[in-house]
C-alpha cells in the first residue's frame, strides 16, 4: 500500500493542459527544456540524418572496392573519410552502419518492450502462481550472461538482420518485465482500479485501458536506454562476424579494421566514434525522459 501511495500518476503532472494534442505539445516543450534530452535528441538527429541524407550524399554499395586501400580521411576528395584495407569507401560504410544500427536497435527494443511489458503486466496483475512462473523464467534469462546468450542464439540460427533482432530482443526483455511488474503490483491496489471494477470491467480491459497507461512512462525511459545497449550488442555481434553478412554494420567495419588499428586507426576510430555518439545520444535521451516523466525528480 505504501508503494501504491508513492507512485503518483507519472503522466498527469507532466502533461498539464487539455486534450491529447495540447498534452503532447506540453510534453515536447518540457522535454526540450531538459538539457540532457536536448543534447541526446541533437545527437540522434545527426545519426538519423547520416542514415537518411547520407545515402544520397554517399551512394553506392558499401562492400564495393571503390578506390585505393587505406586512404586516410581527406586524402582523396572522392573518399572524404578514406577507405579501408580493401579499398571500400568508409563514408558509405558509416551511412550503411547508421541505418543498420538504428533499425536493429529500435526494432529489437520494441520487441523486448512488448515481451517485457506482457510478462510484467501479467505477473504483476495476477500475482500468485502466474507471477511465480513468469518470474522464474525471467530469472533464467537474467542469470545467463546476456551477450553469450545472444551469440549462441545468432550462431544457432543463420546470422541475418532478423535473427540479430530476435537475439537481442530475447536477451533484453527481463529488465522491462521487472519494471512493469513492480508498477503493476503497486497500481493494481490503487482505488481507480477498484472503481473501474465497479463499472464492470474485466481483467483484460483493466490491464490494457486502466493500469497500462499509468505504467508506461518509466517503460519509455527504460526503452531509450535499452536501444543504446541493443546498438552496442549489435556492433559487438558484427565485430565477431555474427552480423548479417549482407549488410555493412559499424561493428563489421571495426572487425575488419582491427588488424590495421596501429597503422590506420581511423578505420576503427570512425565507426567507433559513431557508436559512442549514438549510444550517448540514446542514454542522454533516456535520462532526460526519466527526469521529465518522473514527477519526483522533475522538481529539481
Amino acid at each position, binding site marked *: 500500500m505504501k508503494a501504491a501511495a508513492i507512485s503518483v*500518476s507519472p*503522466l*498527469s*503532472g507532466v*502533461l*498539464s*493542459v*487539455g*486534450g491529447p494534442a495540447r498534452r503532447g505539445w506540453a510534453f515536447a516543450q518540457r522535454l526540450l527544456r531538459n538539457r540532457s534530452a536536448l543534447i541526446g535528441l541533437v545527437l540522434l538527429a545527426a545519426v538519423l540524418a547520416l542514415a537518411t541524407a547520407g545515402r544520397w550524399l554517399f551512394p553506392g554499395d558499401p562492400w564495393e572496392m571503390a578506390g585505393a586501400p587505406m586512404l586516410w580521411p581527406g586524402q582523396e576528395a572522392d573518399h572524404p573519410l578514406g577507405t579501408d584495407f580493401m579499398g571500400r569507401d568508409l563514408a558509405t560504410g558509416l551511412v550503411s552502419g547508421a541505418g543498420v544500427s538504428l533499425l536493429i536497435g529500435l526494432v529489437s527494443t520494441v520487441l523486448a518492450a512488448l515481451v517485457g511489458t506482457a510478462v510484467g503486466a501479467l505477473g504483476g496483475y495476477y500475482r500468485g502462481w502466474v507471477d511465480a512462473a513468469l518470474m522464474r523464467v525471467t530469472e533464467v534469462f537474467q542469470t545467463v550472461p546476456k551477450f553469450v546468450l545472444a551469440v549462441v542464439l545468432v550462431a544457432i540460427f543463420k546470422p541475418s538482420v532478423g535473427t540479430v533482432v530476435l537475439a537481442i530482443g530475447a536477451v533484453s526483455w527481463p529488465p522491462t518485465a521487472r519494471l512493469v511488474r513492480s508498477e503493476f503490483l503497486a497500481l493494481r491496489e*490503487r*482505488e*481507480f482500479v*477498484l*472503481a*473501474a*471494477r*465497479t*463499472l*464492470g*470491467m*474485466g481483467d483484460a*480491459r483493466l490491464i490494457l*485501458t*486502466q493500469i497500462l*497507461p*499509468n505504467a508506461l512512462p518509466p517503460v519509455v525511459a527504460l526503452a531509450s536506454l535499452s536501444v543504446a545497449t541493443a546498438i552496442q550488442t549489435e556492433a559487438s555481434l558484427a565485430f565477431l562476424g555474427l552480423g548479417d553478412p549482407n549488410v555493412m554494420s559499424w561493428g563489421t567495419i571495426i572487425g575488419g579494421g582491427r588488424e590495421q588499428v596501429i597503422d590506420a586507426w581511423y578505420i576503427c576510430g570512425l565507426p567507433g566514434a559513431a557508436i559512442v555518439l549514438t549510444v550517448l545520444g540514446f542514454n542522454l535521451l533516456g535520462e532526460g525522459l526519466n527526469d521529465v516523466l518522473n514527477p519526483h525528480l522533475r522538481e529539481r
Partner: protein
Amino acid sequence: MSLLDIRDLQVAFDTRAGVVQAVNGVNLRVERGETMALVGESGSGKSVTAYAILRLLAKPAGRISGGQVLFQGTDLVQLDERAIRAIRGNRIAMIFQEPLAALNPVLSIGRQITEAIRLHRDASPRAAWEQAVELLDRVQIPSPRQRAQDYPHQLSGGMRQRAMIAIALACEPDLLIADEPTTALDVTTQAQILALLKQLQLSTGMGLLLITHDLGVVAEVADRAAVMYAGRVVEEGGVNALFANPAHPYTQGLLASLQMDRLRAGERLPEIAGTVPSLLDLPEGCAFAPRCGQAHRLCRAESPRLGPAGTAQRVACFFPMAEPVARSLAA
C-alpha cells in the same frame, strides 16, 4: 419486491490473526427511489457490506460466508463472474470517498465516462462522447464540452466528485451506492453534492445506498437509516423516527454525542464508554453489551435479533430504550 434486499449477509476475512467476521448477519432493504443511509463507525462493516453487494471483496482474503443479496429478486451471491460484471456499473453503480484516487489519472474525464457507457451499451465512440458531455452537463459541470477533455488533477474536488457521479450514472443504474461521497469535500461543496445526488435521484428514480458516518448528512438526505455496530445492523427505521426515538442504546449514544449545543461550559463531552470490540474476538451475545448501561445477563448470553420497535423501526436489542423490559421479554 424490493430493489435491494440483503438477508443475513455474512462476510469473513481470513487474516494472519484469524478469521475476521466483518459482517455478521446484516439485513437491509433499499426500495426504488429511496435513500437508505448505512451509518456506523469505522470498522463497523458498512463499506464491506457495500463491496459485498457488488462482490468486490479483496480476494482471496475476503469472502461472503453466508446470506443472500437479492437485487430485483436475483441473488447476486450466486451469480457467476460474467453475470455480476454485467450488473456492475450497469444496474448498480458506486461512487467513492476520494474522487482523485478513484479517477484514472491519465485518462480524460470524458474518456472515462465514454468507457463506462461503452462497457454496457452499444454506442459509437462519437455517440458515447456526446452522451458523456450531456452527463457532465447533468451533474452541473459548467462548459462540459471543454471539461470533458480535462484530466482529474485539473478539476477541483467538487468537480471531480461530480465527474465521478457522471461516470456512475453513465448507464442509468437502478441502485447507486455512495461510499462516504462527501467526506473528502469541504462543507459548502458537500451540501452541493448532496443536493445534486438528491435531485438526480428524483429524476431517475434510482435507489441510493448512502454509506456515511456523518449523522448530519443522514438527517439531510436519507429517507431511512440503518445503524451498524460490529458487523450487524442494530437499528433501522425512518430517519425522523430514528432520530426522535432511538430505541437501541448505541443509536442513542451516537445521537447524544452530537448534542453539544446543550452542553454547559466546562462539562465533559458526551461519549459512549469503552471501545468497539475486536472483530477477531466478538463477545458472546450482544456485541454492544460490554459498553451498554442497560446490559442484562441475557444480553451477554444471547444475540438479539432485529425485531419491530414502534411502527417504523426495527431494533436488535432485548431492552429497547423506548419501552424497556416488558415487551422485549414477551418477544
